[in-house]
């Protein structure tokens, strides 16, 4: 599958899901059970992405500057620091650690 095909199909799927939400009767999709299961599925997906983005390197799990940056991000989130600040500080932490040669 080419990159373009993947991008177009994935975009159509995500876009179609949004539009579908305006078509189905509210009584079906706003069922609390569906809401709960969907919320938990999102949690599982995001947790998996946190791991691969933090420690994934191809088919290996590695510990590098990203892990420290993510740790700092978690502390900032704990103290309710705004999203954009958390992301910028995390980038800064990783960049500085690499500049100093303290982490890969």
């Amino acid at each position, binding site marked *: *599958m080419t*990159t373009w095909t*993947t*991008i*177009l199909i*994935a*975009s159509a*799927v*995500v*876009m179609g*899901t*949004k*539009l*579908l*939400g*305006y078509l189905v009767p509210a009584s079906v*999709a*706003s069922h609390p*059970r*569906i809401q*709960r*299961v969907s*919320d*938990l*599925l999102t*949690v*599982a*997906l*995001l*947790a*998996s*992405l946190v*791991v*691969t*983005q933090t*420690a*994934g390197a*191809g*088919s*290996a*799990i590695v510990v590098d*500057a*990203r892990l420290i*940056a*993510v740790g700092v*991000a*978690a502390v900032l989130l704990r103290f309710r620091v*705004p*999203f954009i600040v958390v*992301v*910028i*500080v*995390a*980038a*800064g*932490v*990783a*960049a*500085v650690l*690499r500049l100093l040669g303290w982490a890969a």
Partner: protein
Amino acid sequence: MTSPAVRSAVSMSLGVAAAVSLYGISFGALAVASGLDFWQTQVLSLFMFSGGSQFAVIGLAAAGASGPSIITAAGLLGIRNGLYAVRMSAVVGPGFLKRLVAGQWTIDESTAVSIAQTDPQAERVGFWLTGAAIYVGWNSMTALGAVIGDALGDPRAWGLDAAAAAAFVALLWPRIQARQPIAIAAVAAVVTIIAVPSTPAGVPILIAAAAGLLMALASERTRA
């Protein structure tokens, strides 16, 4: 003419939009670093328009995942938008074209800002203004990021890879404030760590999703 509730909705919308848009720069830069070209990056922002799914696409693409697994992961992450749409349906009201545009702008932020309002007019303003402002801001900033991404060189030197990881933590954080989601996040994380070295790229997230789904369904059975 404008009530305090509407003014508060306007300021919340613009604040959220500014923060999210700025962050679009790192998406654009990371997208080109992951091997996408400028237009592929922009098609994602213009048509997919959902941060979590977009980052999943470039993260998995960079790891060498197959097309079907990228589509599945992005699609699963997009399910919540469909449920937001159900909630926003009454706020948006009738009209085919209006609902078509609203559909495209139904994301975490527009829904959250709308739900946070206290009167119906403020709910409408919150949804439309947040959606429109983020659509314009996010697309402009991801384009800028894609252009300067090449000039930046190695995105790791700027910590952009860590920024993407932190963004997923920030998306996850408000969702793991109770015991059950924490347990599911932990299981999904462990499953991913085990699966990454032993399965092709893109598969670990699907296994983690399956594990999370099974746990969620099991808890629904005990609840019933």
